[in-house]
């Protein structure tokens, strides 16, 4: 067992020295690290509607469309959904939609709603592709819209935004073990970097434990969409909801195990956005019960 230099342990996590240790432990990826960390605050919109799903967890497409419209307007500050989209993407873009493909996948209704909304905004249908898959997918796109589903993950703590592009690495199993904190480096690959225009999290029916294989006992109807242009901020808000639900159920803190190192590393090592709650501005709309963002 050759010792590989400083290794992240539980003790680093408890000491609060994770940020420094994450940086020094993630060797060999210098060219994929950020030249500077993201600065300033990041806006994340959270829109919920109690009627987004019925009692059998079937999605109501018309309610979902209204939620999507509200999310885009809240996030961009524009007056219409069309203007909101056109502030994020252009008709000349080839836009890749990137959903979570399986094991608590993104609802097809969410993907369809986004696609329809883009078309209504004037994006040609043939310029909207499904971009989930191997490296050839993002290479064919000039813009990416992440559509991950909200779920806990047994390998990474949370398996939502940062894990979304794992297949773009061409070697996803490399990120299953001690390298799972390095997921952020995939976002800095040359054919991925700076293409993500929006991350919209499907938080309609999240999974709060034992993911990614689904155990229905650990899902609940949050009926929400979470969106932002800062993927780390969006993942941080998503994480807060998951941990909030866990705490609500147990009546005490119930931390994810393993801790979601990939989120903090995405901030502190790869400069993809902010994981600092104080630097995240929330724009919340709709159903307030069970918000979990107090």
């Amino acid at each position, binding site marked *: *067992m050759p*010792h*590989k230099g400083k*290794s*992240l*342990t*539980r*003790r680093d*996590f*408890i*000491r609060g020295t994770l940020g420094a240790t994450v940086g020094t*432990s993630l060797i060999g990826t210098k060219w994929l690290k950020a030249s500077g960390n993201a600065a300033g605050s990041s806006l994340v919109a959270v829109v919920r509607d109690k009627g987004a799903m019925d009692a*059998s*967890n079937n999605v109501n497409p018309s309610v979902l469309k209204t939620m999507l419209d509200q999310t885009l307007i809240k996030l961009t500050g524009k007056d219409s959904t069309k203007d909101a989209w056109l502030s994020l993407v252009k008709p000349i873009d080839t836009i890749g939609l990137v959903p979570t493909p*399986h*094991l608590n996948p993104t609802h097809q209704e969410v993907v369809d709603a986004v696609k329809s909304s883009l078309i209504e905004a004037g994006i040609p249908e043939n310029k909207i592709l499904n971009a989930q898959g191997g490296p050839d997918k993002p290479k064919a796109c000039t813009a990416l819209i992440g559509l991950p589903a909200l779920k806990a*993950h*047994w*390998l*990474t703590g949370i*398996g939502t935004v940062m894990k979304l592009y*794992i297949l773009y690495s061409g070697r*996803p*199993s490399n*990120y*299953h*073990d*001690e390298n*799972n*904190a390095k997921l952020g480096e995939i976002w800095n690959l040359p054919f991925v970097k700076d293409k993500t225009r929006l991350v919209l999290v499907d938080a309609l029916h999240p999974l709060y434990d*034992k993911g*990614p*294989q*689904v*155990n*229905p*006992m*650990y899902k609940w109807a949050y009926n929400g969409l979470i969106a932002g242009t800062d993927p780390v901020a969006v993942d941080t808000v998503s994480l807060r909801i998951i941990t909030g639900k866990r705490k609500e159920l147990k009546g005490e803190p119930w931390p994810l*195990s*393993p*801790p979601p*190192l990939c989120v903090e590393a995405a901030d502190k090592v790869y400069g993809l956005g902010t994981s600092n709650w104080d630097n995240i501005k929330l724009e919340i709309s709709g159903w307030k019960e069970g918000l979990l963002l107090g």
Partner: protein
Amino acid sequence: MNSQSRDNTLKHYSTQPKLFFVVCFCLLFFLFISAMPSKTGGKMQESKPTLPKTVGLWTRPDAPQLVTAENIFDYMDGAGELYIGYRFDHLESYEYKAQTQENILVEVYFMKTSDDAFGLLSLDWGGEPIEFAGEPGDFAKSRKANSAAENSSWPRALYGEGLLRLWSDTIYARIMASQETTESKEAVLALGRSIVKERRNPPAPSLLKKLPDSFPANWILSKDEASYFRSHLVLNSIYYLGQENMLDLDLSSEAVTARYERKDSKGKKRIRFLLVRYPDNQIAHQAFAYFHKVYLPEHSLPLQSGSSGEMSNVFHIEDGWLGYKFQGNTIAFIFECPDQETARTIIDQT
């Protein structure tokens, strides 16, 4: 040809058929013997469960989707690491379909040992214990009564909101209805019965017997948080120790972990017990030394004591007192103890 040589010739040809039959008999005898189970511990050829073609409103395809260690990541991405972390053989997956209801997915994981199938079930004790074939279903009672961690009190099947998970000898199975209805629940349970039918019920892993019901003073085992595993990834999903495989866990090792709770005037406290058993003393010692180097770099490895080479110590670290005992081919740990005395008392008892 003279008469004697003719007689010899006749004898030769007359014994040929007899020899032929003797050889055939011996061959058949040896084939029969080799097909029988060995009395010295070899595994009986197990019968593979037969899933019904139709159950209630649902029908399955003729053949399953076969998933091996080579393509498990294609099937389930990172979730595959969970099964690879145990002694996984292969998975057979069926999707049952019905015209008027959502699908039922049946995943039958063939593991190499019953211990590994149990281990997968032990990662989540949530759900309603289900009794098949007249087995005792008193898990809930035994958990409440904190009775001894006997093999018979571990549930073999758990159901909740459309998902049935079960352990049946070397099989771990997940049977999940996309949408739970009265009909789908009946079908899911019927499929579970068909899997466990006429299969053996070996006991739970012997290492579980090393989990005492309690430690002094008044630390009570949380049985619904006891797990059996072999992989550091699984350990981290239960109790995060670190990114590296600092305990050098692999398929040749085995481990159990559980939480113990104590309630006092200051509220509820919890400690974590972990026991790892390695194939031999040398591997155990190497793992112990490496753990020390990675997790306790500021402390020196203790000297071995006694003829057994036992090493034990307690340390105060960020989240409380940690104690360990290395002995033979096992290492026991106790984490997050509130004080030195607790850590020392517990580790001395292991």
